[in-house]
């Protein structure tokens, strides 16, 4: 909570002459950085979540999530230790760990070196690093016409989708 107190402190003038050395002044830029730091959430290595995860902050996952993740307006980062078995929807998704499940992003999906995705991607921009593993389909059909795309799969393929229990809640072990 000390961070919160620090963040609300009134910014000090930057060019005030001072005879004694003072701690690093809190500039507006520093406040912005602190604000963005506060808007990022980490799920640590030892955390396991089963169910539905949604929010309006950027999120980094280093633990395990089984179920569904929705961060429609934010960036989701799956860290190197992250293991996801979920349908994922976010503004942007960066994968450094493992994802089993479909990923939908309104801006971009970025699978970095050693990142692994088994599932379908849907995003206007997709970047896959040389050492990344990927298996699935990539839908880069732009213009927000996902529902208008031509059907590719036969109906029996729909059983491949992992069902998520209705009303499932997040449980932290």
């Amino acid at each position, binding site marked *: 909570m000390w961070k919160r107190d620090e963040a609300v402190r009134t910014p000090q003038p930057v060019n005030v002459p001072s005879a004694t050395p003072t701690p690093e002044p809190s500039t507006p830029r520093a406040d912005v950085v602190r604000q963005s730091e506060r808007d990022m959430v980490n799920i640590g290595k030892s955390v396991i979540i089963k169910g539905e995860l949604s929010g309006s902050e950027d999120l980094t996952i280093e633990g395990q999530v089984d179920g569904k993740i929705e961060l429609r307006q934010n960036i989701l980062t799956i860290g190197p230790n992250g293991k996801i078995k979920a349908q994922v929807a976010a503004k942007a998704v960066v994968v450094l760990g493992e994802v089993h499940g479909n990923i939908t992003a309104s801006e971009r999906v970025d699978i970095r070196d050693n990142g692994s995705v088994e599932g379908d991607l849907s995003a206007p*921009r997709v970047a896959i690093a040389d050492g990344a593993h990927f*298996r*699935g*389909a990539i839908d*880069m*059909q732009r213009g927000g016409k996902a529902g208008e795309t031509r059907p590719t799969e036969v109906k029996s*393929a729909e059983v491949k989708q992992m069902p998520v229990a209705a009303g499932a809640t997040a449980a932290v072990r």
Partner: protein
Amino acid sequence: MPAEVVTTSKVLPRFFAALAQPSLPVIMDLGPIVGPNVAFLGERFSCKLLIEDFFAEVESAARAGSAEGLLEAFDRHLEPLAPGSVDGVLCWDLFDFLDRGIGQALAARLTALLREGGVLYGSFGTTPVQLSHYTRVFFESDDKFRTRPYPATPVKRTVLVTRDINRMFEGLRVAESVLLKSSTRETLFRKA
């Protein structure tokens, strides 16, 4: 292991040109994932890409020392797809690694998946050598690609003469066929 080579293609530009016709084309790549190609195709066509990596299945079969079950493995990739739902298929040199029977059966399945006017690109070696590497292909431009080899369990290349290749893809017509300096025949098929 051979060095990386940049090759000029007369056939790939026609493959890309054919994909410019349908809006939001569906492209199936039977090779391994190549990140820069995903960006290249995405920027170019605003497409749907199906990355299947049949070479991984070929390698599994080669390590097992038997092609039994290889066609079933291919089918697991293809079964979810509706007939006539694909606009373009990139086979690369996959058929060099398949015996004729499996190659014939796979060609029939791919032909069925193509929509009318859809195109299929393949390259076919003309020398009966031992193949000890697969090839990752990077698009550099419409008519240039870079090949990067990676290790394979050695198998003898299946060499098909042009007539056999054309028969194998019954239902498709040859739109372009060019013999490269590397003794590889690039062929573009189109579904009439």
